[in-house]
């Protein structure tokens, strides 16, 4: 009787195990579909957020090239340096209180860089050195290094050389 009981318990346990395994497999399949749905929604939000953000940033008169009011599809290296200096200068933060906060609130950007990748230029921070033509990184905004990163190629115009180079606009932001 006892052995029979043990056997029945064993069979019940086996059935329970098989049932659990089937349940887990079905849960995995279900969550895969849900996960795909979430990923799709996330992608849509990212598309909307970063497209708008990058469009706005590349269209800012503080950064965009223009000659006598006529705008061109490029970023002006002189303006990039000036923008970085104004936003990141400690003295300006005290003078124009909230200049950083305004950009953070408006765009939700944690960090904004333009890295010149072609043709090869020197290595270094363009906001610091005297020789702007031989540096590769324009740091425009630098609040935090965390967040989602989006990179897009941009045309960078050097007015004193009258030349165009290719850079990467790197936007680090969070989805709110």
């Amino acid at each position, binding site marked *: 009787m*006892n052995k029979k*009981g*043990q056997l029945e*318990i*064993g069979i019940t*346990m086996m059935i*329970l*195990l098989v049932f*659990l395994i089937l349940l*887990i497999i079905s849960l*995995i399949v279900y969550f895969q579909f849900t*996960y795909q749905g979430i990923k799709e929604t996330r*992608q849509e939000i*990212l*598309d909307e957020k*970063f*497209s708008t953000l*990058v*469009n706005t940033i*590349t269209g800012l008169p503080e950064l965009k090239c223009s000659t006598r009011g006529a705008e061109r*599809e*490029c970023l002006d290296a002189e303006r990039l340096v000036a923008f970085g200096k104004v936003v990141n200068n400690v003295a300006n933060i005290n003078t124009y209180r909230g200049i950083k906060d305004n950009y953070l609130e408006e765009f939700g950007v944690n960090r904004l860089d333009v890295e010149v*990748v*072609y*043709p090869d230029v020197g290595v270094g921070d363009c906001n610091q050195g005297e020789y702007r033509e031989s540096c590769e990184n324009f740091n425009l905004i630098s609040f935090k290094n965390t*967040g*989602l*990163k*989006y*990179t*897009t*190629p*941009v*045309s960078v*115009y050097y007015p004193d050389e009258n*030349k*165009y*180079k*290719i*850079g*990467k606009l790197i936007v680090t932001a969070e989805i709110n």
Partner: protein
Amino acid sequence: MDLFRKNVHGKRGQAEIFGLIIIVVLLIFAFLFFVKVKQDDSSNVVLRSNFRANNLMNAIMNVNFGDDDMKELLKKCLDKGGRPAPECNVPNDELTKIFEKTLLEFEKFEFKGTKGGAEFTLPQISDCLEGITASPVRLRGNYMFTLKLCS
């Protein structure tokens, strides 16, 4: 006494089976958690809009080499009948470098320029079948350039 021992053994067997099931279930959940966490470690965003392709196309067309810009070099290449004319070597090499430096590792591209029957293409054309296409650039003299990015 004998009956008592058998009952104790039976209950211990039950407890062991329950324990085993719990361990198996926990292991499965731990595995699932590990797989999910491993999938979500990317912080780079890739958009489906043609914004990147348009920006890259614009940057390529503007870039300067000495006194010339890419537009002029590509036009000269197409005027000589496209590849393998020697005039196409410089734009071919420089474009390959530009794509290496601006695109992500998994991205492929197709760059094509046409004028009448002449055609200029970069070798990765066979790898990039479906993707995001930039708005074509048309220049005076019936030149047309297109760029497609594939993930």
